[in-house]
């Protein structure tokens, strides 16, 4: 399954899957599925997106933060974030929600 990130997904809220656990070690996110089978290490930008996936931020808001933090243009940030999020969705690590998730 290859998720295709769409323009309308920018208005959705990024939520971590409950089937994964994660740790931040030296600002880098490490993620493991609850079946314990595979450990994913995310790069710096991936880790930044990960930390923002709290169900309260839309993808658009996350992209704006990426632009500020990494000094990239909006188009590049949207494309890169979209590709990255699509991969995380394929691995079942994150989901997109129409509405914010109350913690």
């Amino acid at each position, binding site marked *: 399954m290859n998720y295709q990130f769409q323009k309308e997904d920018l208005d959705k809220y990024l939520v971590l899957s409950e089937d994964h*656990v*994660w*740790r931040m*070690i*030296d600002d880098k996110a*490490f993620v*493991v599925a*609850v*079946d*314990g089978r595979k*450990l994913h290490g995310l790069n710096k930008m991936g880790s930044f997106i990960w930390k923002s996936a709290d169900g309260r931020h839309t993808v658009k808001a996350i992209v704006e933060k990426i632009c500020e933090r990494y000094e990239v243009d909006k188009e590049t940030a949207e494309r890169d974030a979209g590709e990255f999020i699509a991969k995380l969705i394929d691995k079942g690590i994150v989901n997109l929600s129409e509405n914010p998730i109350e913690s």
Partner: protein
Amino acid sequence: MERNIPLTVLFELTNRCNLSCKHCYRFPEKREELSYREICAFLDELQEMGTFYLVFTGGEALVRSDFFQIAEYARKKGFLLILMTNGTLITDEEADKIAALKFLELEISLLGATPTTHDSITKVPGSFAKTIRAIELLKARNLQVRTKTTLMSLNVSEYQAITSLAERLEVPSKIRPWVVPRRDGSREPLKYQLSLDDMRLHLRNDLEIGCLLEVDEAHSGPMICNAGRVLCAISPYGDLFPCVLIPLKLGNLRKDSFAKIWKSPNNELRRIRSVTKSDLKTCSVCDVASFCNRCPGVAYMETGDLMAPSPSACQLAKWRADLKAGNAGNV
């Protein structure tokens, strides 16, 4: 691994047990066990340190009346949970709770293929039936279950039957011939250790030999093992050890934070982290080294020296070497 992130922590929640296994290395201590609040605080620390896998054990962890409260807290903090248990306290109710908490793996102690053998080792009549029931209940809930058997003189004659039983129950089995001295130094359990005669008499065919020829992944690299690097153990009283089998106390979590003990290692921890197999003077030149499954913790408990040859490992390695050479001992 280079950063010594304690990915796996073995947490002994209690020293108490409802069984009295003859070979057990446990001995009762007159100290106050960690409370629920203390355990939760330590779990918070472990989460900060990067720990992923929490292995709950004891004694028998389910003897604690707050076991499921602890497990629930751990699950909420995002740990991957593994339970080592004798299974005797698991009924439908406990199995449901274990399933709801999505335990990654359950390791159940199976000490014989028959009630006679198993119960004679645990010294509790009826324990075998309860253990088998636990395996069935957990399997019925699609949980990952494995049996763990300490192979010793008391059950070696049932080696084949134990592996067959695990197959019938449709669970993998882990069989290891590691009987170690008690933690108070008593060598009493060692009288049950497999002898060469035991091996010659009972372990003959490829199936039996094959299992004992496996080298544990933890012992297969250049370092002596993962203890004190990506693995550690916490006692029911908050003592921190490099591993449950290496009783060299690194500190106590009631006095110092985990981070302080782990990141500012004492001399002992520094040594454990730096030792490689080539530093083992005797073992590094041993001609049966490739057949050896030496555990530094077992070596320490047998000899008092982390770096010394482990007599039980030496015996087993020589036996494996003989088998490979086709010189299987004559009875």
